[in-house]
């Protein structure tokens, strides 16, 4: 019994000894998406030759532009893909124009306007197999300059992992989270979709090119298509997102409302009115009498509302909310004559007949729940729908019966929750 006791005590001591040398180990890693600043000398960027290269797979497509039989698809910050879309059931990737810092484009009379950081470039695309850079208007998008030094600050969407001691975790957590910083506005702007689609930033009307950045509207005269000249800068306030031209008016969507500008004198648009509402991100499409605006919850512009709003704009000086319809999670929208197509995010794609705006809810034509989508463009040949499957095209010649034609694969499709 005595030896038993000694054994027991020894073992307890040994185990306790091993134990006492130990402490809990806690390690924390924080992986976050953020915008890393990159500094570039504009002179270096300009010195680089731009020559059209062989087709490249779509990685993270931005704006989509329909030009005759061709689709031009922006790869944010990288350049422009050119696809032959003469047969929408089988689009063919033809070539790629590498343009550093490009996020948007517009085409006027066979001239392609594209931004490259602070510059506006002009390409001659009359021969699609022989695209040439013919002009460069320097230093127009100057908001990208840091301290007017000729150095451009651009932000690269990156994922960073940091290790930290557990008691450090709470610090810097929200500071570093890009969705809570202004940087995310930039990332969203650079990723906004399609002109023709309702999330555009460049637009052409009456021989003038209008470009919106986060805070202002820039006007270029393009009467001579190859020689755009910068006319003026109009301040709009924060949170500008989209621009939609219609009948000598510009409808500019911001995250606080919709600005209406009179562009009868295209070189000097004047403000007619601002239709304000609660904070929301809202694409706009317009016909003669009404503007169609979507508000949705679940993004940075959270307001808890998912709605399609119909705004009476017969008197553009005094737009009035005519009717609002509850939606599930509306993103982009497109208007083709009397038909409205609406991307409902993860819920699918809806189509409506909207000749009577007071009864849109009773005139829903189709609700394709399998077709998750974030934006769409009603093109002359097909309805282009952007979603997790990539860039898809539908035959919509029978408006209430969409028929899928093709989908262009995208390496990094959007995630729709």
């Amino acid at each position, binding site marked *: 019994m005595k030896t038993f006791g000694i054994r*027991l005590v020894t073992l307890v001591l040994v185990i306790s000894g091993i*134990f006492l040398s130990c402490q809990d180990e806690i390690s924390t890693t924080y992986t976050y998406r953020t915008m890393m600043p990159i500094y570039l000398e504009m002179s270096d960027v300009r010195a680089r030759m731009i020559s059209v290269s062989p087709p490249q797979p779509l990685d993270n497509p931005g704006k989509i532009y329909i030009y005759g039989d061709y689709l031009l698809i922006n790869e944010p910050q990288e350049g422009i893909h050119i696809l032959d879309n003469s047969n929408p059931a089988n689009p063919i990737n033809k070539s790629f124009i590498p343009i550093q810092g490009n996020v948007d484009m517009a085409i006027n009379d066979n001239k392609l306007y594209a931004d490259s950081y602070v510059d506006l470039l002009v390409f001659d695309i009359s021969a699609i197999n022989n695209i040439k850079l013919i002009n460069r208007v320097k230093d127009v998008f100057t908001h990208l300059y840091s301290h007017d030094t000729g150095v451009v600050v651009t932000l690269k969407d990156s*994922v960073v992992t940091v290790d930290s001691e557990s008691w450090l975790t709470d610090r810097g957590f929200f500071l570093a989270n890009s969705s809570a910083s202004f940087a*995310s506005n930039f990332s969203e702007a650079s990723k906004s979709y399609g002109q023709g689609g309702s999330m555009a930033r460049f637009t052409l009307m009456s021989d003038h090119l209008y470009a919106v950045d986060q805070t202002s509207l820039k006007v270029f005269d393009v009467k001579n298509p190859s020689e755009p000249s910068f006319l003026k800068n109009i301040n709009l306030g924060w949170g500008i997102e989209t621009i939609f031209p219609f009948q000598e008016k510009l409808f500019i969507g911001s995250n606080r409302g919709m600005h209406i500008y009179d562009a009868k004198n295209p070189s000097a648009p004047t403000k007619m009115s601002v239709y304000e509402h609660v904070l929301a991100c809202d694409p706009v499409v317009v016909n003669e009498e009404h503007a169609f605006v979507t508000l949705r919850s679940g993004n940075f512009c959270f307001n808890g509302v998912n709605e399609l709003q119909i705004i009476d704009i017969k008197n553009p000086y005094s737009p009035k909310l005519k009717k609002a319809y509850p939606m599930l999670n509306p993103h982009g929208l497109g208007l083709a004559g009397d038909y409205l197509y609406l991307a409902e995010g993860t819920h699918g794609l809806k189509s409506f007949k909207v000749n009577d705006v007071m009864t849109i809810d009773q005139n829903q034509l189709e609700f394709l729940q399998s077709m998750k989508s974030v934006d769409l463009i009603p093109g002359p040949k097909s309805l282009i729908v952007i979603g997790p499957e990539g860039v898809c095209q539908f035959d919509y010649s029978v408006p209430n019966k969409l028929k899928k034609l093709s989908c262009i694969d995208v390496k990094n499709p959007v995630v729709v929750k």
Partner: protein
Amino acid sequence: MKVILLILVIYLLFISTGYGQDKVYYNQTEVGALFGKGQELWNGEHDSRLGFSLITFHGAKISKYHVVGFSLGFDQYESISIIPFALGWRGFLGKENRPQLIGGLDFGGGSAILEKKENTEWYESWYEGGLMYSPSIGVKLPAKKGKTSLTLTIAYKSQKAGYFQGFFDQGLTPRPLTNSNLPPGYNSITETFYQFHSLVARIGLAF
């Protein structure tokens, strides 16, 4: 995992019935406390950690001095509750019906199934369990009458666990980045990995 354990126990119970008249089933159920030492704080000191611990071991005698089986329990580590489950062994030293030394080893995992998952429009968070092993040593003091014994056990217990908090991408059009170690749809994720080293003191009954 649990199914495998169950099958194994049933199998062991089955083969061990071959040993004839001896009682085959062995149960040892104990409650006690987990003692631990937290990570070094900024001032070089450590917080001490104290939590409740429960273990119930069910086994089959495979020989006079050895029992194999499985254990299930409940452990409280600060704010994390873990259900440990393990394959186990108990060995006895000393004469039967006299005070015996018990050696034990449990090897398995811990589940964080009791912890609430949170899932909101903005983020989701959850706990995960992990590897657990625990060598133990104790005494078994049989009652004067009957088959029940009192047990006193001291054990070392290593338990891994993790806490994850992922914030969703709130962008207009969230997209994953290529070669990103961030799951699609997330804007950020905080992963906290715990390895708890505990000393466990327990008291219970065996029969």
